[in-house]
Each structure stands twice: as C-alpha cells, then as structure tokens.
C-alpha cells in the first residue's frame, strides 16, 4: 500500500537526514561533541528513534574520531531506539547477517556505556575469495558504518586483507554512477589508509567527486566527512596523504612513480 506508507517513509527519511545533519555538524566542529544530547529519551518521537536506529554506530563518529568514547545521552537514545524498534526485516539470509553486523557495531559501542553490555561477533561473512570482489564490496558498502576508529573484528580484518578489492568496488560504483555505494566504499578505503596500509586509490579526488556530483544528502555527507577525517589520519592533506599522487603535485618527477 504505497499510498499509506509514503508519508510515513518520508517522515522517517526526514528524521534520518536531520539526525545525520546534527552529527555531521558536530563532526565538522572537530570537538568530541554529543549532537543528540538535547533530545529527550523518554518522549523521543518514533521517527527520531527510527533515525537513531538507522544511523547506529555513526552517531558516535564525532566522538570516536576525536579520540573520545561514546557519550551517555546519545547512548541512552540509541539503547531506547533498539529497545523500541526491531531490527529491520532482511530479504535474505545474507542481508540478515549484514544487519547483525550493523547491530554488533552499535552494541559494541553501547557496551562502553552504562546502556549496553558485551556483544558477541555474529557469524563471519564470506570473503571475496568465495563471492568475488563485486559482491563482497557491495556488502562492505552496506557495512560502511563499521569503518570507525575503535571498532575491530572479522569485518575489519577482511578490509585490511582486501584493500584492493575495496578500491575496485569504489571505482566500479563511480563508473556505474552509484555514488551512494561509492561514498560508503571510499570510507573503507580511507579506513585502510588510516590503518597504515598502502593506499590503492586516492581518496581525496573521490570525496570531491561525490561531494560535487552526489545526492547532497546529510547522510552521504556524514559518510564522506568520516572518510575525510579517516584519511587525514593517514597523514595527507585532503585525504591524499601517502597516495600515489599527492594533490597539487601530480607532475612530480621526484616521487619515483614515473620511472619505467
């Protein structure tokens, strides 16, 4: 019944955008802010709770990227959202696993506050050797919320082991004009750079491309901002530090890349 659902969906989507905007603004400030501290838990409207559940671990991105732990008010809101709203229905067993891992990330961060307790790893997802780099990278895009400092596990191990496949997935998404998937994957590429791995793809130009040509949503903007902050951790300006071609130095002869 699309006629009945559409207004509700719009309302929820607007709430996701609003919460993503608050989080993005906090992230841009650079301080370990708690963007949802003013939102009352007890009377939180359902769209707000839905948005909080959707964004999950990303709500803590401004704090984690500033080296701080999850804040109490946001954790309380997230815990309430998880209590009130069930996990979304997954259309397949694999999609269900993705949801479990997204929930794991949120639960893992909540466990560092009074609002949660330790959560076990869900079953490990198959790697690119089994499902191919395309299918694997699409799934990693769905798990891009896990690409945050302070989270680690088998999904992250997979990212470390398959940096090239992540880069390939990013490039494929860009060429297919699927900038939403590209934005999520380049976040993993930035994350592998922050882990000290040799970059397989320049992050900065990809972020710029998506910023200029993407959907302009706050949610995509939040993912891009996280990616940019992660890439700054690998030491370069504009997310290109250590990349094959530093920005503004594209013709350098001294970097050894042009030797045949």
């Amino acid at each position, binding site marked *: 019944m699309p006629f009945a659902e559409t207004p509700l969906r719009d309302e929820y989507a607007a709430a996701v955008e609003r919460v993503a905007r608050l989080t993005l603004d906090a992230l841009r400030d650079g301080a370990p802010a708690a963007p949802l501290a003013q939102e009352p838990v007890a009377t939180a409207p359902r769209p707000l709770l839905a948005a909080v559940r959707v964004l999950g671990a990303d709500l803590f991105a401004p704090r984690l990227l500033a080296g701080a732990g999850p804040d109490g008010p946001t954790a309380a809101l997230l815990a309430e959202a998880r209590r009130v709203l069930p996990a979304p229905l997954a259309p397949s067993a694999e999609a269900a696993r993705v949801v479990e891992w997204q929930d794991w990330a949120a639960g893992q961060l909540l466990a560092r506050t009074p609002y949660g307790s330790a959560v076990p790893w869900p079953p490990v997802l198959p790697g690119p050797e089994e499902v191919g*780099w*395309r299918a694997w990278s699409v799934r990693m895009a769905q798990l891009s919320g896990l690409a945050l400092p302070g989270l680690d596990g088998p999904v992250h191990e997979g990212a470390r082991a398959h940096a*090239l496949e992540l*880069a*390939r997935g*990013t*490039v*494929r998404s*860009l*060429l*297919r004009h699927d900038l939403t998937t590209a934005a999520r994957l380049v976040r993993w590429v930035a994350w592998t750079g922050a882990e000290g791995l040799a970059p*397989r*793809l*320049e992050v900065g*130009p*990809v972020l710029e*491309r998506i910023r200029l040509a993407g959907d302009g949503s706050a949610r995509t903007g939040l993912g891009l901002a996280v990616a940019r902050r992660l890439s700054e951790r690998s030491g370069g300006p504009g997310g290109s530090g250590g990349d*094959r*071609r530093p920005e503004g130095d594209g013709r350098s002869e001294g970097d050894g*890349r*042009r*030797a*045949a």
Partner: protein
Amino acid sequence: MIDTQVLASAQRLGSRALSWLHAAHRDGLGRIPDNTLIDFGDADNAYKPLGEVALATSLVLRDGVSGPADSRAARELLDGCWAQLREGDLLYERQLHHFTMTDPLETYGHFARAGYRHPPLEELLDSLSRLRASDAEEIRANRRLGVANARRVVGLDHRPDWEALARGTWLGARPEPWAVNWMTGYDITHTVFHLTDWGARPEGLPGPMRDYVRDWLPVWLDVWVEVGQWDLVAELLVVDACFGEPTTGRQGWDALAAVQHEDGLLPRDSDPVDVDGDRERVFLDHQHTAVVAVVAGDVTLARALRATAGE
C-alpha cells in the same frame, strides 16, 4: 595458473569470428570495388577495415597457435586483402602523395608482419621517417605509438623514445581509474597493444602502467560487460593477455560466448542485430568486433603457450 576453460572459450570465440570474417570476404563483402577510385584525402579511408583484417590474421600467422583450418583461413584472408590493395601499390600511392599521413604505414605494418613486402613503399617510408614532419602530425598519443610500432615491425631504422611516447598517453598519466570513459577505454587498450606489439613484447609495457592496468582492468571489464559494449570488452580481453598473468578470469569470455551468433558474428554492442536485413550493413557494423575477437583468442592462447613453455 591458466584456466583451461578460459582457453577453450578464447579458442572457440576467435575461431568462429575468423570463420565469419572468412565467409564474408569469400562472398565479396567489404571489398574495395576494383573500378572505384579511393578518395586519397579521406582520413577514415576505405581500406581501413582491410588493414584491421590484416592485423588479426597476421597475428594468427605470427603466433602459430591456431589449428590448420584457421591458419589457412587467415592466409586466404591476408592474400585477399593484399590483392585488393594491389600488392601494396595502393598504400604506396597514398603514402607518396600524402606523405605525412600515417595510415599507409600502419596498414602496411600488418602485411609486413606476415611477409607481404613492397620494396618501393619501404624505401619511401624509410626516407619519410627521417623527416621531422612525419613526427609532427597532431595525432592521438596512442596512435603515435601505433606508428612507432609499425616502423618497428616493418624494420625501419627508427629509434623512437618509447618512454616519452608512453608517458604522453592517457594510460601513461595513470589518471583516476574512475575517470575512464568509452573513448579513453580504447585509448588504454591501444596503448597496451602497441607498446607490447600485441602481446609479443610483454616487457614493453612500463612497470607502473602494468601495475595500474592490473589493478583496474577487472573493474573496467565488469562495467563494460554490464552495459554490453562487446567490442570494448573484447579489446580489454586482448589487453589482459598482452602482459603477465591474465587478471579478469572468465567473466568477459563467458559474456562474449553468450552473445556470439552461431555463424560467428559477435555483436559490437547490446543493440539488436538485424540478421535478416542487409548483409553488407551487418558486416560493416560488426567486422571490427570480429577482428578484435580473433585477436583476443589468438593472443590469449599465445600467452598461455609462452607461459607453459617458460615453466
């Protein structure tokens, strides 16, 4: 590790495409009418397709990895093309009158590779290669490589700065891999073709370019398979066999095998083919893709054989 299923697909695809080309030429399609004067000023000239057939068949004969029937078909096609060019006289006349044009040389290179020679044309080409003007023509950078490779194949005493030529191409710049489009995709494939002389000189592709292609070729192949640009897909499969171990696996071969017609026609893209329509039109539309399919099959088998011999 060489995937034998890939080799079987490559052999079948190339052999059927060769058979389709052979049948079409046997029936007189794509001929230069004997009584027609070629417009010598036409850049995309009437004999360009003949040169492309000569390219594919000269590689089949060079690599010697095809069965006797395919080798015979290749030789017959080459003989026919050479005869249409009046044993090289047409190339000679065009080169003589339009001496900065590069296509007579490029076309001749394919015939010379297979032993079809025209001494006056070679004397002319040798003389022209010493003119500054012959390198001043403002052509695409990868085509400049094609010219250099043709001079090498013909055996002209000419020593180009391969590294500088390679650097001047799209691939040489190693741009953001997501910036490629259909046109620059062909720029990439042709740069690899000429630098490696269609797989005979794998070391001709500079290391950084090789690494770059290895990283991104699977992505480019995937996106052009998805949109059914079969001609470019086949060119990318040629690239995959021109240096080192192929990286793209079965995806491209399976896709091409699925769209090749029973008679060997390989559609250039996903648009419908009017098989009941004008046969000449169908031939003209899809002959280039057949040429690429023959080359893809040939260089893939040749590379596998070299790898086996080197083990």
